[in-house]
């Protein structure tokens, strides 16, 4: 059993990650995750990441070892769907107290596992480590091992306490727990040449079920979905699949790659968002299965299903096209891959004016450029007044985003549609695309936005906050343009590399003075991106902007 720090190092070394492959040995050691900035409004922790990655496993008891904070705030907070057991929704926690902190919580954890097994008898218990027990030295691996032996039931330690890093790391650590303790521990009753794993799909809003009928029709069996609507046993025998599709690349790439390495299961990265992506993914599934000895005729049948489904979806979307003509969309999204949704929206005839790249990799950005053209606005983050300005200048009619940006958009008076995890509609597959188009239509034409945009009728429209904010933005821009000292200060104040504290001015100057053209050169001259390496993507942008000698890329402060 490897130590937590060794596992983390291992995850950082993930060769399947394109970004990782471009790094030096030293860089890789630093880890691939962005260092959290103290004082910033950060996202979830590694515990949360592990929990959301595994929580969709429906028939296991998810026991959170820690004080009430961890489970109390996360209990049943995801819209995953189960076709069977609902025990995943029951909140189990050791709810440790002061005495446990002083004397250790291992006994309590052991008893809690015992009680779960006695009272619920699930096929497995997943035990999640959290900060406090990790800090006081509770060894959940040992407790799980002992409990497992004593009760003759898998008790799986998920060692991903919050302090080890951000959510994304937690996703991967969850994957490691499956690889180490679950996958390959059982055998399926039978196998077929059509057995498929789907990795990194969580069945939010029951999305998987919009695709599953097509796979069923083709005779393709989802041997295991990790983890949406998953069952413990399915994951345990998932190593017998013939091929795998990886859905959310960042979250569980380690699982897909290591299963390829250990069990020879080839995988591809695909998406069911959008019509063309769905078709591509179906083809790719068929191709991989055929490569592994499924009959060739599978491809013929797949193409037939694709042709039929595409025609149906296009026909359903067609009536919306005239309504969407000239409508501009701003896409701010976290979990759902930006580029996959970009393609989907363009299919519906919407014009994309910008998309977020906050969680996107360099490859994602390239794909976005491919799809949206070179002048695509890529946005790291946006303030309400910037949003309002875009809307006011008729640069965007609607924003599609995750739940967090929702409130910012609403305050800015921008129509908004939820496409992230907390959405209540399923957008996957061909039918999902039609649903998305339907929802966009509803959002675009909701009369309520009128109210939202219009100031109170008695208000002097020259004096409302929007007008004031825009005036202030204009004034700031004008002041910078007029005052070289202030402009210099602003340039110096804008930090690009947080690890090495390198500002925009320094980088731009270095590029100017030394005629730099690559991120590597910039790093040598300024040390920027010499830390976690996350900002190398932003340095790319600066370089690109310089080379194009156009206006700097739209990019708000991180």
């Amino acid at each position: 059993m490897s130590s937590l720090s060794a596992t983390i190092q291992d995850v950082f070394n993930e060769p399947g990650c394109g970004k990782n492959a471009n790094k030096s040995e030293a860089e890789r050691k630093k880890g691939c995750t962005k260092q959290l900035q103290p004082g910033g409004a950060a996202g979830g922790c590694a515990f949360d990441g592990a929990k959301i990655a595994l929580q969709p496993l429906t028939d296991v008891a998810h026991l959170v070892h820690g004080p009430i904070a961890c489970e109390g705030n996360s209990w049943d907070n995801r819209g995953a769907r189960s076709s069977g057991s609902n025990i995943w929704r029951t909140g189990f926690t050791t709810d440790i107290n002061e005495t446990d902190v002083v004397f250790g919580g291992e006994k309590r954890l052991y008893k809690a596992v015992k009680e779960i097994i006695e009272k619920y008898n699930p096929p497995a218990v997943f035990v999640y480590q959290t900060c406090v027990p990790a800090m006081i030295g509770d060894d959940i691996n040992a407790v799980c091992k002992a409990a497992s032996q004593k009760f003759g039931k898998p008790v799986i330690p998920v060692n991903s306490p919050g302090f080890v890093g951000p959510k994304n790391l937690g996703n991967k650590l969850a994957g490691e727990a499956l690889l180490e303790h679950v996958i390959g521990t059982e055998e399926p009753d039978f196998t077929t040449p059509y057995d498929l794993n789907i990795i990194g799909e969580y069945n939010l809003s029951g999305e998987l079920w919009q695709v599953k009928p097509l796979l069923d029709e083709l005779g393709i069996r989802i041997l295991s979905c990790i983890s949406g609507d998953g069952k413990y046993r399915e994951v345990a025998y998932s190593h017998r699949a013939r091929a795998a599709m990886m859905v959310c690349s960042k979250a569980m790439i380690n699982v897909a790659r290591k299963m390829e390495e250990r069990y020879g299961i080839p995988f591809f990265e695909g998406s069911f968002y959008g019509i063309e992506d769905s078709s591509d993914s179906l083809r790719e599934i068929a191709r991989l299965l055929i490569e592994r000895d499924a009959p060739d005729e599978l491809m013929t049948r797949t193409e037939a299903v694709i042709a039929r489904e595409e025609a149906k979806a296009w026909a359903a979307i067609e009536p919306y096209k005239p309504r969407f003509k000239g409508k501009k969309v701003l896409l701010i999204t976290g979990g759902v891959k930006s580029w996959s949704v970009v393609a989907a929206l363009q299919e519906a005839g919407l014009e994309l004016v910008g998309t977020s790249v906050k969680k996107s990799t360099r490859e994602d950005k390239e794909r976005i450029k491919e799809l949206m053209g070179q002048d695509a606005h890529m946005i790291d983050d946006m303030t309400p007044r910037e949003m309002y300005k875009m809307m006011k200048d008729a640069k965007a009619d609607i924003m599609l985003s995750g739940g967090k940006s929702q409130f910012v958009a609403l305050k800015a008076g921008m129509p908004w549609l939820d496409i992230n995890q907390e959405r209540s509609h399923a957008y996957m597959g061909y039918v999902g695309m039609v649903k998305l188009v339907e929802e966009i239509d509803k959002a675009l034409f909701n009369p309520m936005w009128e109210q939202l945009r219009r100031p109170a009728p008695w208000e002097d429209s020259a004096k409302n906050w929007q007008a004031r904010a825009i005036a202030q933005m204009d004034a700031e821009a004008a002041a910078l343009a007029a005052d070289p000292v202030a402009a210099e200060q602003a340039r110096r104040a804008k930090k690009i590399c947080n690890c090495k504290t390198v500002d925009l001015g320094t980088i731009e100057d270095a590029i100017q003075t030394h005629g730099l053209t690559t991120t590597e050169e910039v790093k040598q001259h300024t040390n920027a991106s010499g830390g976690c390496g996350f900002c190398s993507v932003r340095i790319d942008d600066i370089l690109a902007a310089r080379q194009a000698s156009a206006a700097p890329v739209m990019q708000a402060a991180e």
Partner: protein
Amino acid sequence: MTQNADHVLDHFELFRGPEYQQMLANKKKMFENPRDPAEVERIREWAKTPEYREKNFAREALTVNPAKACQPLGAVFAAVGFEGTIPFVHGSQGCVAYYRSHLSRHFKEPSSCVSSSMTEDAAVFGGLNNMIDGLANTYSMYKPKMIAVSTTCMAEVIGDDLNAFIKTAKEKGSVPNEYDVPFAHTPAFVGSHVTGYDNALKGIIEHFWDGKAGTAPKLERQPNEKINFIGGFDGYTVGNTREVKRIFETMGIEYTILADNSDVFDTPTDGEFRMYDGGTTLEDAANAIHAKATISMQHYSTEKTLPLIAAHGQEVVSFNHPIGVTATDEFIMALSRISGKEIPEELARERGRLVDAMADSSAHIHGKKFAIYGDPDLCIGLAAFLLELGAEPTHVLATNGTKQWAEKVQAVFDSSPFGQNCHVYPGKDLWHMRSLLFTEPVDFVIGNTYGKYLERDTGTPLIRIGFPIFDRHHHHRYPVWGYQGGMNVLVWILDKIFDEIDRNTNVPAKTDYSFDIIR
């Protein structure tokens, strides 16, 4: 016997016991000449068809399940809004008992009101003696500051002349000569409770302003800066009136609420019985003539009152039970325009909060279909709010709605693309609504307590907004006017929507994969 003295079962439980079930079954079998259950079922299903609807809408004489009440109910409602005033209904006492129980059951408060208790001989010879004795007894027993007289059908059919009767009663010493006894003829066979409200209020205002039935000089209007406010017949009067007062005070406007019954329908429990509480003082009622303007929140509750007030030289403005952002904007801006006062930041913030709340939840309401029934103004206010939210008020029905009202509702439909497929039904009843709900189903119905039968029969979830609400408590304490009131209506609608989502997803191991904590 399932019933025993140690553990007394109430009707929920008792009649489900085997003895009663057996007895009821025997009774049905032996004495009720039961129909073939299949035939009953066939008819029940047939009553859901378009064919039945056509016959239903061809009804000419019969009204089934009316969504309106009678004039004197409205008159009583208006009268108790004046300080120390007892409503005196000239006619049969049975009617009066209805008004009292109706109001008590809605507001969960005692409702004081007397009648002249006309009997058969009074019906033949006229009710003068009942008026004389009635006024005398009321005056001496309940010590009111004013007795507001209205009538039931009985008195109207025989043509009792209130003006003359009251005069005679005063001559006979029933009440002092200078004592205030305003009156209004309020026959139930004309209009509805909103008409009665209008007539009673008009009678009271006329009494004070126009020389108290010839016993005092007419008042001379000396314009001041005050604004009069009339709420109309409103089941939310307790919450609404207080909210409106707050709005006036926030804006720094001097005001007079005419017929302010918000206190008498919400008296505290502190050991003292208040037959009268709060209300517009008689002095204020008289001085209201000097106001700059009068605002009515419900046009159809003040169709006669407002012209009377306008004739005295005031500006009059009426609304149709404004609910939501746009309608409230209009109300607030009218206040600002008339008073010359600026709209304070506090109200602007409340507006922003309502807009914010609507935006947060709009996706759940947007595109949903609603049926609305109720009083004419309430229907308009709700329909406009639903349109604002992107919902469709598919059926809008008022038993006491006129053709002219229907045109107004149509104009509201026409103002929004969401009104395109909506229809208005003036003068129709809840049995018509039943057919509408079967043949053109909607997602929700908004109406009063009687809508629960529609909910049961058609499966359309009922959102209780209107009058009377007997089977849910205390909603009348919440405003539906002002931006904060709009928030309440929004929340009530949303609560039902979410309840429905939960109800449709709560079957264990069947639908509960969508039984989510986050909606």
